[in-house]
């Protein structure tokens, strides 16, 4: 049976620790409490969006729309708060709903329109960015609401609020993926859609739901983005979708679907952010950061793909030793 803390977590967890260790050795500012708290703020947006990206990937889909959807949602959110005079406690759930509906729409087009999700969400990636520009003549909207900043910068028991969002949403996601009927159906659809059909699973519905979840989590990320900068902008969220997918992949999710653990995605996101943080602290230019991010993704997938060869190589080393001993 699938367990929440299974072997799939060990690799990504080890990778995260190794990366953290290397960064801690190269700079003494890494373990500074201020830096660690900053890290949890930095990781929060991409890690929350990565929950949705992972779930879509588990069902053998891909969501490229997250970054542009963040831009669109921050603009809608800013419009509501700044110009439409909608109170924040109404605007917050409204944005979550809009995100979930946009995602669901993409899911419906993908599943029932039989268009590959790569194409639907690529189209959305382009179109959402364009839609975001239709608000406020394409200019960012600043100074939305002083209360909004609390959503991102507020603290509880001395810990930043985004830390609690991470705990809450990852706990929810882990419970759904490991203990719910829906979670099981998502893994089944990703593992073998043809078999899922013959076992009476409504494959199209399940696929559409994964995109709705992704849209919802993107909206959560968009709200944090708006709160962090107290603004909305059509330029927010560039490449965020790729970072979220990278987090899932570094966490060991198979892009072919069916395999992956949502908690491992959190480790993946942290690994990526720790590397970026380490490069920052060591004053590496941002160009280098992107190159390193690319290499991490290659390495993570490579290790997964070459697992058999690596273990064969290791056993040959050992076998060779015993043979020569004979």
């Amino acid at each position: 049976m699938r367990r929440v803390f299974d072997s799939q977590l060990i690799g990504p967890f080890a990778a995260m620790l190794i990366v953290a260790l290397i960064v801690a050795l190269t700079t003494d500012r890494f373990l500074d409490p201020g830096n660690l708290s900053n890290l949890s703020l930095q990781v929060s947006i991409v890690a929350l969006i990565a929950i949705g990206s992972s779930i879509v990937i588990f069902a053998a889909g891909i969501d490229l729309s997250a970054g542009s959807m963040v831009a669109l949602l921050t603009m809608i959110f800013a419009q509501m708060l700044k110009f439409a005079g909608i109170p924040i406690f109404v605007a917050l759930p409204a944005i979550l709903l809009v995100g979930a509906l946009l995602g669901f729409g993409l899911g419906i087009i993908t599943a029932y329109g039989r268009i590959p999700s790569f194409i639907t969400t690529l189209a959305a990636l382009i179109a959402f960015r364009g839609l975001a520009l239709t608000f406020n003549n394409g200019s960012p909207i600043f100074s939305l609401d002083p209360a909004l900043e609390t959503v991102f910068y507020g603290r509880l028991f001395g810990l930043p609020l985004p830390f609690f969002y991470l705990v809450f949403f990852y706990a929810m996601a882990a419970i759904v993926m490991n203990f719910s009927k829906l979670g099981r159906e998502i893994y089944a659809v990703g593992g073998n859609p043809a078999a899922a059909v013959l076992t009476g699973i409504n494959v199209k519905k399940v696929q559409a739901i994964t995109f709705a979840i992704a849209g919802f989590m993107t909206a959560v990320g968009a709200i944090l983005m708006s709160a962090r900068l107290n603004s909305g902008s059509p330029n927010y969220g560039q490449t965020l979708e790729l970072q979220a997918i990278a987090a899932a992949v570094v966490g060991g999710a198979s892009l072919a679907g069916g395999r992956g653990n949502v908690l491992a995605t959190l480790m993946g996101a942290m690994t990526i952010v720790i590397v970026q943080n380490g490069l920052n602290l060591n004053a590496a230019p941002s160009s280098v950061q992107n190159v390193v991010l690319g290499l991490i993704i290659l390495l993570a997938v490579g290790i997964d793909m070459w697992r058999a060869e690596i273990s064969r190589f290791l056993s040959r080393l050992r076998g060779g030793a015993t043979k020569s001993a004979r």
Partner: protein
Amino acid sequence: MSANDSPLWEFVNISKAYPGVLANDKVCIKLMPGSIHGLLGENGCGKSTMIKTLSGVQQPDSGQILHKGKEVRIADPDDARRRGVATVFQEFSIVPTLSVGENIFLGNMPRNRLGLIDWKTVNDASARVLKKLDIELSPETITGSLSVGEQQLVEIAKAVAMDAEMVILDEPTAALGEHEIEQLHVLLRKMRAQGTSILYVSHRLDEVERIVDEVTILRSGKVVRESGETEINVSEIVAAMVGEDVSEHYPKENNSVDDVVFECQNLRTRFGVNGASFDLRKGEVLGLGGVLGSGRTEIAHAIFGVDKLTDGALLLNGKKIEIKNEMQAINAGFALVPENRKYDGLFFNFRASGNITAAALPRIARRGFLDLAAEAKGTERLMNELEISPQAEKKTVNFLSGGNQQKVVIARWLFSEANILIFDEPTQGIDIGAKIAVYKLMNALTRAGKSIILISSDHDELLAMSDRIAVVQHGHINRVVGAGELSHDDLVRASSYGDAGDARPAAAAARIQTNSNESLAAEAIQ
């Protein structure tokens, strides 16, 4: 047989160990030119290990490989190919979007002076190969448009085109119908006459009996019968493979009672079901007999809600029911063990439990959450009952043998407590021990009052395990007769479009298959 008496290839005391298993234990085998050599044994007996060694996929730990009497080392698959060894694996390696000629020369396309593909040579040379083998296909046909049987012939033509002296066939007939098997055998005999050595691996013993010249039987990595030690007949072979006398190869129980539980009336779909009617009794095994492409699987799909009915009615216990999709079929108590467990049966990302409960998640769900304890308990019970390897719960199911995988798929429908089970080729590609386990399971199910619709291309199995047989032709049921009233030959004749005398029946079947729409239309007009 060839006049040449020295072996083409010889294995002398070949051993190969994997972690925890001695897969080949001092195996000796002589492969003679111009001979068809059957390599038999249950799953896990070491057949695949031998094939992999001979085709250069892996190296033996010890022992010698002799090629025409000289000791050689087969470094890799390419080396094997250069030494004239061609392997046709169970999963085809042809590319469906390419032409027959392209497939035949895939990997060593003739080039012209400009380095571009020399199409004339491709087509001429492949036409020559096809002619040599009496395969009436055009080199320019797109391979994907051919029947599975014809694709298999292309696969073998590919081996012949590279001048292979040694052809290894791993389960060549798993996907073929009776006519196509016959055509394959004609081809193999022709190759044998031309001096090719053929190593033939199959679970279909009736067909082994017909084609091979000698057999080597393996059990637990050891050769238990060398060539010449066994008479080539099914019961001797089975006894040697299993290691005990299996008198009950088909342990059929008659549990059928007269109550009709399910009835199909004049089913039609757009996918080749053309007015199929039959009834199914309580505790009965109803066999659907017919050639590949006759519409047996399509009838199963029509019942199970996979294909939409355009006409006809389904009656469950005398009451008309609507089945619009698979979920409704499952809720009505139907089960489908699909033809190809790898393609649409198993979830390879799950262990046994996830596979077993997949069709009955509502049964273990409370308000959307799964009762994992109930799942574990139910799974454990079924795994014990069906004697599924305990490994099935430790690893994902891709690590299991074919027999265990099939049992997992069947266990799924025991967990869903289905009453009417459709078994589509339930014993394809599994070893004799697992086959007998499946037959016993069918007995247990019918004893419990459940009914089974059995689709099988293995005619012996179909005749032995069914209570009645419905002969399917063009998606239509010609007649339903008691299994005892039908012989193997009757069944072949009854399902073979009345052209049993045709010299090229497989091609005829393929033609009918590709033109099924027109022929159905023609029939409808009549």
